């Protein structure tokens, strides 16, 4: 099997994201937490999906959750989220850099939490 054959091919994203396949920031991950900035109205030029997305994020959700609720691929939602962060409508809640591994202190907290389940 040629692994080069397996590539994301989000055809619709070229329409929905004005022809871009990649977000304007590369720190977004499926687990990245996002939330709407309530004080910032969505631009009148924003599309239906952008509005839906911002509305969905009136509480904190991970990017993957937003994608699942909107029934869109994560790769496409990452582009939309990135634009909405740039426009000031969304804020990234997770305050760490996505590629940085959690420290031992975080793992200990997770363990404590899991043991209480």
């Amino acid at each position, binding site marked *: *099997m040629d692994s080069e*054959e397996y590539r994301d*091919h989000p055809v619709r994203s070229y329409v929905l994201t004005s022809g871009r396949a990649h977000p304007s920031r590369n720190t977004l991950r*499926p687990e990245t937490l996002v939330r709407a900035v309530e004080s910032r109205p969505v631009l009148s030029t924003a599309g239906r999906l952008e509005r839906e997305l911002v509305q969905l994020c009136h509480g904190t959700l991970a990017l993957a959750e937003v994608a699942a609720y909107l029934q869109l*691929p994560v790769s496409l939602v990452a582009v939309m989220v990135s634009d909405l962060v740039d426009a000031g409508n969304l804020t990234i809640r997770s305050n760490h850099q996505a590629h940085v*591994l959690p420290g031992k202190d975080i793992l200990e907290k*997770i*363990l404590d*939490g899991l043991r209480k389940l």
Partner: protein
Amino acid sequence: MDSASSDRTVPGQHLAPTVARSVKILVVGAFGVGKTTLIGAVSEIEPLRTEERITTASVGIDPGQPNKETTTVAMDFGRITVTEDIALYLFGTPGQRRFWDLWSGLADGAVGALVMIDTRHLEDSFEVLDQLELRTKIPFAVVVNQFPDSPDYPLERVRAALDLLPETPIVECDARDRQSAVLTLITLVEHAMTFPVFQKVNA
């Protein structure tokens, strides 16, 4: 893989406002090995599904439609708010790296991976384990999901058959059972704590 009912995707299950950080664990394994079952057993939300489209020669992906040029690969996931400020996401994905790459950055920053095994189809897990051992530095634990007709192999025999490193944890589990599933996560995080890469405190 159970089929998602349409009323599952009702939005509104937001995280508590105190949650400011997310971490993730991958749940990998062959089709039908119980990934979504395990995620559903521990998740505080009904497992959600997201799909990516791929172009493919359709080998082993979509046996029903062998001539399709594009297909979709689904990722089921759930979440657990483990402390008031940390949400743990569990992403279920077929084990091969080419699938992880569909979800940009899925493996980056992961605490680790649960590799789910069905002892009736042990050979299905060889490629997954090879990829984890050779191509990533992600800590992983092997979870033997017990099916009613699973052969009763001792764990040490499974360990030998899979050629696992001595320090790699291997546990039995009933993926339908919450406590059993939680124990697999605890085993994995305890194992991850021994990795030097996590020693740094970067709160």
